[in-house]
């Protein structure tokens, strides 16, 4: 089991190292994993979570605008009764919502596309100031959930 590590004690007590390379606080909270350090999963601190179940379609867009400076966003699109083959169009940093409608003839203007049920991590060289979402068909309110986690 764990071995007490000298000289790394904190206010909560000693830190212990487990055999899988994890350092734990006395209360059990993971302090560090040598095989998977913090942010290794692509979402650096700080983060901001946003979600919506509003209707989207080829003519209706949902716009999420984080308040911080983020260059990454993990987008998760969960089905709750909508079409399982629906496509979600993603457009970042559009000047307005009309510009963010990237269905049909405007499809080339989208930054990413995903299918219902997927999750996607997008990485941008410039801060993501907004994300507009539209779909290839009508997705009524509360039949889906968009969960976006923005990360620095």
């Amino acid at each position, binding site marked *: 089991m764990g071995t007490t590590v000298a000289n790394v004690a904190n206010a909560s007590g000693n830190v212990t190292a487990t055999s899988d390379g994890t350092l734990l606080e006395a209360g059990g909270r993971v302090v560090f994993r040598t095989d998977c350090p913090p942010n290794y999963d692509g979402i650096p601190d700080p983060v901001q979570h946003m979600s919506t179940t509003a209707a989207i379609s080829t003519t209706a867009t949902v716009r999420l605008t984080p308040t911080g400076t983020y260059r990454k966003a993990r987008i998760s699109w969960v089905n709750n009764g909508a079409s399982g083959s629906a496509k979600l169009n993603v457009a970042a940093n559009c000047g307005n919502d009309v510009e963010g409608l990237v269905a049909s003839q*405007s499809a080339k*203007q989208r930054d990413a596309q995903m299918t219902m049920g997927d999750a996607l991590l*997008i990485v941008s060289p410039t801060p993501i100031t907004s994300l507009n979402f539209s779909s290839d068909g009508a997705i009524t309110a509360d039949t889906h959930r968009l969960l976006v986690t923005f990360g620095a």
Partner: protein
Amino acid sequence: MPLNQQVIYPRDAYPASSYCNWFFLGSQASGDIENKAPGKAVGAKNGTFTDGECWATAGYATVGGASDNWAGVAASTADLQSLATHTLIVAARVRKVAVALPSVENFLYSSYKPGSEYGGIVLAHGTTGFARLYINAADNTTVSLTTATNTITDGATANERTLVFIVPREGGNGYVAVDGLETVSSTVASVAGKALAGGRTARLGVSLAGVAADAHQLASFQSYCVPLAGSAISRLAVYDWVQRNPHLPIPDWVFGL
């Protein structure tokens, strides 16, 4: 749940084009037609041209349909560089609202008035469905580049078309691309090296004479004056960029600059 990672390049990740005269994307809900070229003039809607008319269809500026449905583009933006020094490129996405062929040649953009005010260009939709760019030098020499008939509409189906016109400064042939493919080349020699600036406010939607045009949906209407000979520009790269990136002005590197 599967998680994929994708690098995106949002609109603001691209540097502004150094040679863009105007880029009217046409994706708004209201207001004057925004010009995405930094420091360039908007398309200022005529006073009786309402938001409901101009922005009736998301993703397009709908112009024409009545003689007062136009937007003015200030001379500081509409005036083009001389063909003595610059190659002219004009591109647009165009769709006619009604499928019927125009009963008269429709002017979709005009910066000169044939017969009286010279120096500029006219983007037109002809009565047989062709798209045409007239290039009128300040000395009233005119050439034109024309697509095949039935391009914008054949009277039965009106398609959105992506048009690119290239007028090399050295003359020779000018070129037209439709939906990313070069379809026409014809001589523009008579305007080679000539001035194009007319010094007047241009109109989007109708002719400068105020002749009404049928309603057309315009998007990604853009123009560049590039300080290179046409022969030094990869036309195919230009066509490809315009077709593939309808929301983005052409970056300098596409021109090789």
